[in-house]
């Protein structure tokens, strides 16, 4: 007995020793120059939504390099960006946010592609009195007490639904069915879609919900397309849309397909995954970045993407950094509780319109009133922190290419 106890005690000590080791890992990060302004982002790199993270990271890194290259903010201080993996998990995103807040002392926790991750991290970030910026859609995040610290750069779920109905009207679809994934972003758009369809005299024949990560979607696809509606409103993310599109193609259904940019575009990844034949004839909509503006064209070029690519989320990450540095410059402090009051000052009209962050910083220093327009949206916020003036960009996949159909709002 005595022998085995000794082994136990050693092992316990060894195990406990592992914890401070994690602390030791943290030291180099703390050893950054005191003048740096730390910002953080929680982005998905692994798990079901892992494919959306890298482009957001690329955009955020680019804009940070740009700001630092032009001399930084707050009188020559550099911006330092820390990015953590959300693992597409609410629990992991809480640990990640806590690490950013407590170890890296960030003033902004941005990113947040997924609503569950944002909802779980919200109380942690608000308790620390720091700003949370979102690229997710669930209405609940900006509901309740936000302490004026939350900003959403993406359209809300309840804005996507009616936009879908307007697309249906545009393509002349009266009788429709809905095929939707069970996830917080999508579930919240079904009711507003039904309400808008009723308003424009259409009829929603059936709503088919499916679970994420299914091996096959054949049963659900057949149920939704079975009654031969004029069109099916397919509400997916990327991985399931790839399977669903193949299933629709295989079944030879004639109903039109209207889908979301999150699934049927995903910054071009959908077309790459299924090929032109399967993708032919699918309509999709997404909250539009300012497609025609020179700043957006420049953004696409800097991202190294082909001209005309619609970036749905990378632009949000870009804008999150821009808004933060502009508000800090305006408030003349890195203190989140203070500069959050400057966000609407630099983003909302009135003011001189500007889309280049370096130019905007200079204008703020010169004491000008600016109205910043970003790469992902116009960056105007209502009192809850939701972005206003969202219009949706509708495209049709034709001959292996996204072709513009129009804008609905």
């Amino acid at each position, binding site marked *: 007995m005595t022998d085995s106890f000794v082994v136990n005690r050693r*092992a316990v000590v060894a195990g406990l020793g592992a914890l401070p080791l994690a602390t030791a890992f943290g030291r180099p990060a703390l050893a950054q120059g005191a003048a740096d302004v730390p910002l953080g982002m929680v982005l998905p790199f692994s798990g079901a939504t892992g494919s959306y993270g890298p482009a957001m990271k690329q955009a955020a890194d680019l804009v940070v390099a740009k700001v630092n290259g032009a001399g930084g903010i707050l009188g020559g201080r550099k911006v330092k960006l820390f990015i953590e993996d959300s693992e597409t998990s*609410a629990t992991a995103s809480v640990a990640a946010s806590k690490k950013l807040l407590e170890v890296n002392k960030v003033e902004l926790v941005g990113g947040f592609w997924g609503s569950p991750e944002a909802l779980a991290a919200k109380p942690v970030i608000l308790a620390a009195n720091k700003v949370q910026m979102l690229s997710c859609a669930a209405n609940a995040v900006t509901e309740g007490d936000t302490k004026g610290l939350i900003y959403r750069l993406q359209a809300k779920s309840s804005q996507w639904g009616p936009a879908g109905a307007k697309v249906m009207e545009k393509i002349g679809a009266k009788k429709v069915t809905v095929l939707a994934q069970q996830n917080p972003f999508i579930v919240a758009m079904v009711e507003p879609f039904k309400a808008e369809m009723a308003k424009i005299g259409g009829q929603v024949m059936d709503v088919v919900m499916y679970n994420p990560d299914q091996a096959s979607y054949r049963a659900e696809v057949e149920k939704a397309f079975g009654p031969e509606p004029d069109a099916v409103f397919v509400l997916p993310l990327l991985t399931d849309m790839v399977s669903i599109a193949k299933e629709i193609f295989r079944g030879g259904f004639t109903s039109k397909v209207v889908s979301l940019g999150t699934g049927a575009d995903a910054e071009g990844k959908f077309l790459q995954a299924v090929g032109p034949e399967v993708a032919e004839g699918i309509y999709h909509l997404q909250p539009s970045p300012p497609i025609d503006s020179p700043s957006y064209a420049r953004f696409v070029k800097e991202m190294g993407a082909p001209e005309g690519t619609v970036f749905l989320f990378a632009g949000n990450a870009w804008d999150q950094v821009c808004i933060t540095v502009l508000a800090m410059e305006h408030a003349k402090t890195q203190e989140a509780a203070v500069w959050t009051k400057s966000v609407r000052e630099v983003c909302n009209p009135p003011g001189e319109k500007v889309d280049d962050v370096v130019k905007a910083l200079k204008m703020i220093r010169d004491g000008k009133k600016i109205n910043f327009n970003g790469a992902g949206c116009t960056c105007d916020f209502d009192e809850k922190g939701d972005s206003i003036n969202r219009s949706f960009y509708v495209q049709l996949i034709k001959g292996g290419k996204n072709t513009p159909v129009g804008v609905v709002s």
Partner: protein
Amino acid sequence: MIAYLITITILVCVAALVGLALNLQWGLAGLVNFGVVGFVAIGAYAAALLAPEIGWLPAMAVSAALSAAFSAGLALLAIRLEENYLAIVTIGFGEVVRLVILNEPWLTNGALGIADIPRPFAALGDAVGGDAVFLVFAVALVALAFVTLEGMARSPFGRALRAIRDDATVTSALGKNVFALRVRAFAVGGAVMGIAGALHAYYLTYIDPGQFTPIVTAYAFMAVIAGGRGSNVGLLVGAGSIMALLEGTRFLKDFITVIDGVQLSALRLGLIGVGIVLLLILRPQGLAPEPRRRTSDVLPDRTTRS
């Protein structure tokens, strides 16, 4: 840094409770439960739904009771099955729970999840600062579970469970009611998993079906295997090291600048896998293995015999 470590320690406490429960079921009694996450989810949702109605402590008690009841029910149905088949049934159970939670929005709010779950000691926590009070509560819960389960493991009940694990037929021949003992072990484990779920819900204050994926089960098994199957001390060490590994790797990219975040997130999970493989090769019995009695512990030493 301190507040971050507190968060991690609370998450370790949740993982340790789940692990302790699994250690009773699988480590001690040899019952493979791959549906761990289902019982944790039942506990979490019961606590989240009931806490605003009846207060957090009664809600936690109900989570434990409900999860124990489901455990006992599943055990009554399936415990006679042989090891591998029990594993399959419990996997199925875990999935059923997740799908019910996802698809019954009238009860669970479906995919949107439940937000604003009241947190115990929130007012007190604000006064002292941070989550320190909650941490004390979580550690106390783990201590309580540890003492109770360790007591059980040393009691005749625990000895009977070990005997069943090593050879059920022999135990049965010795007059023990194998079936009843197994059901009891399963139910007690279920109760502790329910409490772990409630603690998880109270700490995060937001739960959704996405938090209750099979990875929770995998982490629990990793903790039991890393620590040493059947050893409660080992379990605490195992749960602590797994979390240290998971969170510690977050810091890699802050000081190795050659790797960027995208590569690191893939590398992290790979490193954890390598860590576990190495552990199993170098220390298959676990970090703090179950103490085994030798003949000399029971029989008088031959040299001292007169």
